């Protein structure tokens, strides 16, 4: 009788082990941080050389081309693991591939960030009909008038391969912002607009890591 009981227990234990084994071989959902997908294959460049950008519309108190170079280099040093270098303004609007190859001579998988920049301000006026009194004993001539200054930053960016001298990526970025304060200095607007430009550029250039769900299989 005892032996029979033992046999039943052994059978149950083995069946339980089989069940547990089956459970442990099921799919496993994981959340994994995946690197950003950029137009450039991973590891395709180890150095970024940022040139001075050509200023299409120079301002009296600000050189957007120089400021953009400095800003991008600083931000790239934070976000990019490789080397970030500065370079002067290239000669001409579209230097030939031989120029870029010569500039990158001796560098390890270098790309150039180059192009042109334009920062423009424009006063925009509009009437707000609901605020314009038709008849009043007071001077209301300017009450319905809204004035804003719109600053627009346009960057024509090119990523040029140091190895081949050919452009790998070209894109025109345009950011604008309205300010109620008409006297807002260009430096202030440039600072805000270049941050928006960076937010648009970096995912395209470096990719943005994201957390994704995936399912691993065990059988």
């Amino acid at each position: 009788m005892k032996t029979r009981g033992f046999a039943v227990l052994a059978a149950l234990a083995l069946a339980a082990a089989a069940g547990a084994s089956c459970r442990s071989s099921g799919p496993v959902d994981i959340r994994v941080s995946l690197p950003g997908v950029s137009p450039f294959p991973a590891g395709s460049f180890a150095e970024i050389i940022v040139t001075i950008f050509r200023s299409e519309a120079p301002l009296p108190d600000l050189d957007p081309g120089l400021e953009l170079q400095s800003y991008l280099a600083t931000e790239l040093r934070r976000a990019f693991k490789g080397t970030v270098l500065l370079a002067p303004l290239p000669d001409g609007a579209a230097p030939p591939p031989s120029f870029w190859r010569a500039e990158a001579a001796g560098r390890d998988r270098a790309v150039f960030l180059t192009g042109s920049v334009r920062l423009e301000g424009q006063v925009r006026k509009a009437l707000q009909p609901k605020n314009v009194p038709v008849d009043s004993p007071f001077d209301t001539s300017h009450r319905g008038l809204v004035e804003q200054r719109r600053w627009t930053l346009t960057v024509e960016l090119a990523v040029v391969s140091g190895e081949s001298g050919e452009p790998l990526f070209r894109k025109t970025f345009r950011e604008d912002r309205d300010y109620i304060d008409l006297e807002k200095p260009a430096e202030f607007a440039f600072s805000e607009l270049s941050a928006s430009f960076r937010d648009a550029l970096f995912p395209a250039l470096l990719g943005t890591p994201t957390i994704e769900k995936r399912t691993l299989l065990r059988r």
Partner: protein
Amino acid sequence: MRRQIFPPLVLSLIIAFTACARPLATGALTAGVAAARQDGWEEAARHWRAALERDPGSAAAHNNLAIAYEKLGAWEEARREYEEALGLAPEDRAIKENYEAFMARLASGRGKRP
């Protein structure tokens, strides 16, 4: 007495080895999963490659290896492994979902290239 012991023992052994039908090669698969859960993706990929050497028809190993390649930023290799996995197990829901998520992500990053 012994006769009474054998039938349940044999029965339970049959249950153990057939109910789950787990091939021995899955040891490498599970080792890879364990490594991946510890964020050891290089090691995980090695286990899954070993699993594929033992069983080249393992859709699970191809699927897992594709995820490892995604993690390592090797998009072309990931795509190839997912497509192998889907070719071997076209109805597998998990593989299909992984592949669709991968392709959507790839398109969102590369589709904007001018």
